[in-house]
């Protein structure tokens, strides 16, 4: 009799003691895979969307140039060029490219890709100037960074 009783008495509770461990595991996964942005962007960045995007395979070769109106109103409203953490002038681009090239190994130097992240209110003038300088610096591979267009229809 007592044997049967015991069975029916057992509570049907799922042990939740391991739940925090599972959540922590997920948390650590996200913490490890997250790449924190290395530079703080000092210019406005509303990048126009596009459809025909190509994904770059070698991330190591990509260097970023940010172009847009400065966030700090004291710097005016004309678009500025930001490389790494500071603003550069048009004339400083060749030197900056050479510094970035030096960071890569010898064989990869000519494959450097410049990713242009340009705000959509920027005029083409400054972009053409940047392109001329990049040609001068022999960094001919460029990519206009753009997020995927979301379909409205």
């Amino acid at each position: 009799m007592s044997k049967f009783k015991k069975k029916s008495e057992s509570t049907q509770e799922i042990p939740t003691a391991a739940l925090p461990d599972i959540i922590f595991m997920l948390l650590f996964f996200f913490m490890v895979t997250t790449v924190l942005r290395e530079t703080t962007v000092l210019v406005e960045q509303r990048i126009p969307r596009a459809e025909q995007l190509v994904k770059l395979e070698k991330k190591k070769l990509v260097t970023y140039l940010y172009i847009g109106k400065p966030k700090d109103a004291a710097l005016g409203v004309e678009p500025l060029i930001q490389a790494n953490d500071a603003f550069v002038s048009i004339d400083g681009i060749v030197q900056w490219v050479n510094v970035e090239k030096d960071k890569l190994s010898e064989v990869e130097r000519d494959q450097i890709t410049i990713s242009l992240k340009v705000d959509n209110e920027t005029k083409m003038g400054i972009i053409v100037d940047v392109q001329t300088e990049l040609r001068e610096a022999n960094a001919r591979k460029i990519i206009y960074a753009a997020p995927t267009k979301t379909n409205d229809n």
Partner: protein
Amino acid sequence: MARSKDKGGTEVNAGSMADIAFLLLIFFLVTTQIATNKGLTLLLPPKQEEDEPLEVKQQQRNIFKILVNSQDKILIEDDQVIDDVSEIRGMVYDFVLNFGAPGDVKRGAADVSDKETYAALTPAMRAYVNSNLGSSESSDGPSKAIVSLKADRGSSYEIFIQILDELNAAYNKIYGDRVGLTDEEFRKLKKSDPRQKALYDEARAGIPKAISIAEPTKVGG
């Protein structure tokens, strides 16, 4: 009184641990920006040498001219103003595949002539070319066709990206059609996979993506 304090179990309540962990997890989920390296690629022309002639004469019919002025108005081939950017896609598709006078000269990395390119087209594409294209006023063949995009210094970056997007769409459509894929499928081919790379090379052989960003004039618009 003191007794009860000592007696009390010293176990920390771990029930809320999961909640704390969830909170952190959600924080990271929301703030994480997975870095994307997506965009429109472009290869700039090499540095201009001083003694080189500034202009290489190209026959006018082999150049598809797109002009953008400072009001973001688009002019095609010097005589057609269009309002809708998406019209460019079809125009460029027709222009590149015109085969007005395909030559025998082998060009490019794949070393194929325009005639061979034409022979390698799918029957459906050849039928399309025969019935609709082949005008003597448009490009001689894909290896000679150049799309020139000239944007005024005062035009906006947004319209430039839109046009560049359309140009890439036109080329991807051509490439995709050649190997029986849609433009989207073609775009997603992985070059690291040998089979997909072969398909990619097959599609591109003989039809270079000749998009030229011309230097804008300093005045006017």
